[in-house]
């Protein structure tokens, strides 16, 4: 299927378009946060502590009087950044390893690279992040690194499976028969033909990475105060759960809607790009 036809098919699906719309909106909010936020998200105002939502503070204020809406708008930055960079790391680790493993096969595949992937899968991402935070300090960079490493095995497996099946196809065989080097065949013929499934996996991984970043920030391992993030705001919100509902409601809702948007987008991509799972 050509890419332009895939795009046309994608935009014929209402849920996929909704997902696309949500993702673009969150991206725009993250980019233009300074212009959109009504207040300084880091500046405490001790005259306005824990104010309920009103016309002045649309979503209320937090425990030191900061405007919640402004903090959520800026919080989008941490989540988007973590989602994209972590997955970039995962793709950077996973695709080369998987491609090599599947295309070259043999000893390198079964004894070295796949066992490495098994070892990586055995570590829950959050546990990996705890260890890395202990060694390198808890901050957004460490969190992104941990999430990236944690999401890499899925890319290793996917790229390997794709390379294994593409290797046997006639056009790859033809490229090999023409005397092209292995690395050239891998990069010019095998890799471009797995972009569809890779794109689908990328959207799944972005959704999971955003969830992981908010979980780590919730534990205090990701974004550090006073920088706003959805996860750390929820952490504060838990402490006031009984009396101050907006502090735990809106940050969670922001995460949920964003991840749902990425998920809808990903399902749309899968429907048009990955014929295997078409339901």
């Amino acid at each position, binding site marked *: 299927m050509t890419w332009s036809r895939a795009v046309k098919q994608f935009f014929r699906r209402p849920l996929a378009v909704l997902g696309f719309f949500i993702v673009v909106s969150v991206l725009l909010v993250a980019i233009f946060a300074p212009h959109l936020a009504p207040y300084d998200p880091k500046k405490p105002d001790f005259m306005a502590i824990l104010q309920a939502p009103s016309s002045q503070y649309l979503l209320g204020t937090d425990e030191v009087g900061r405007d919640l809406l402004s903090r959520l708008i800026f919080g989008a930055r941490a989540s988007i950044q973590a989602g994209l960079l972590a997955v970039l790391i995962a793709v950077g680790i996973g695709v080369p390893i998987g491609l090599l493993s599947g295309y070259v096969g043999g000893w390198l595949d079964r004894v070295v690279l796949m*066992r*490495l992937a*098994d*070892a990586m*899968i*055995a*570590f*829950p*991402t*959050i*546990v990996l992040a*705890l*260890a*890395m*935070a*202990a*060694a*390198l300090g808890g901050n957004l960079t460490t969190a992104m690194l941990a999430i990236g490493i944690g999401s890499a095995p899925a890319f290793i497996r996917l790229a390997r499976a794709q390379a294994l099946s593409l290797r046997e196809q006639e056009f790859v065989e033809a490229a090999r028969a023409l005397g092209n080097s292995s690395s050239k065949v891998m990069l010019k013929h095998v890799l471009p033909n797995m972009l569809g499934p890779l794109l689908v996996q990328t959207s799944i991984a972005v*959704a999971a990475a955003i*969830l992981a970043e*908010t*979980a780590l920030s*919730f*534990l205090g391992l990701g974004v550090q105060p006073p920088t706003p993030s959805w*996860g750390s705001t*929820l952490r504060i*919100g*838990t402490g006031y*759960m*009984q009396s101050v*509902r907006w502090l*735990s409601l809106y*940050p*969670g809702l922001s*995460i*949920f809607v964003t*991840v*749902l948007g990425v*998920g*809808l987008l990903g*399902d749309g991509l899968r429907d048009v790009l990955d014929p295997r*799972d078409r*339901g």
Partner: protein
Amino acid sequence: MLGFLTNRILTAIPVIILITVAVFSVMHLLPGDPTLAILGDEATPQSRAVLRERMGLNRPVHVQYLSWLGGLVTGDLGRSLVDNTPVKRAVSFAFPVTLQIALVSLIISITIGVPLGILSAVRRGGFVDAVSSIFALSAISVPAFWAGILLMYFAALQLGWFPSSGFVRFNEDPWRSLHHSILPAIALALRPIGIFMRMTRGSMLEIINSDFVRTARAKGASETTVNLRHALRNALIPLFTLIGLEFSGLMGGVVVIDTLFAIPGFGRLIYSAFLRSDFVMMQSLMVLFSLVVIVVNLLTDISYSLIDPRIRYS
């Protein structure tokens, strides 16, 4: 079968060794001096030197690694740097708690996710399919800790149906123990519910359209028989691998959920070890965390091969 089993177990061994090397290296990159963490900033150089010697930190790194590995193999997980209790004892208290919550969570996710997936596939394109597909994607998109907060607020604090936090051990009071594990288990189950539903739906759809199911239908078998006896049995096979994969997420999830619900499980143990820079405790716990994931994956692989003989020979 025996060949498959030995092969599967033998490949797990280098993976476990790789993990111990990785964990050990990461933990030894730690910037601070562990003796400072234990004795405090006012410790004299002499007392720190004595402690270093006692902890074996003056030995070459590979000797330290091997003695730690030897300990792990013989069941000696070391002692906590903070209160000097054996890590093994802390683990034996926390592990059953986490196992219980993980099992309850798996049972919930399978009993909801699989039937929903079947229903969706059988009523493909209909209203039920649309609603449960959106439900599944939502369940995957909800952060477990936020779901936990909402459950805690509505089901525990507002309605009073469940305790809002804490835990009772199963051997003390099984009923209350289950009661305490329901909310955390639901929070952890949401993602697997969505994943299992989508997987069951997908593989059911594939199988419903396959030749042997068409044959069964042509022979006059009722729609229910076809769906449940012929299609479902085959559709469930991939579920086993998925359970293994989801288990890793579940073990990560307990870190957040234990903290939120104040549950004395594995998650809280490793998180408090992190907060107290108890690196001996962390080191052993990390290996145990991944060991649990590996063992569960091994078990699912084995049960998978018992059901589907094709796996053993591929």
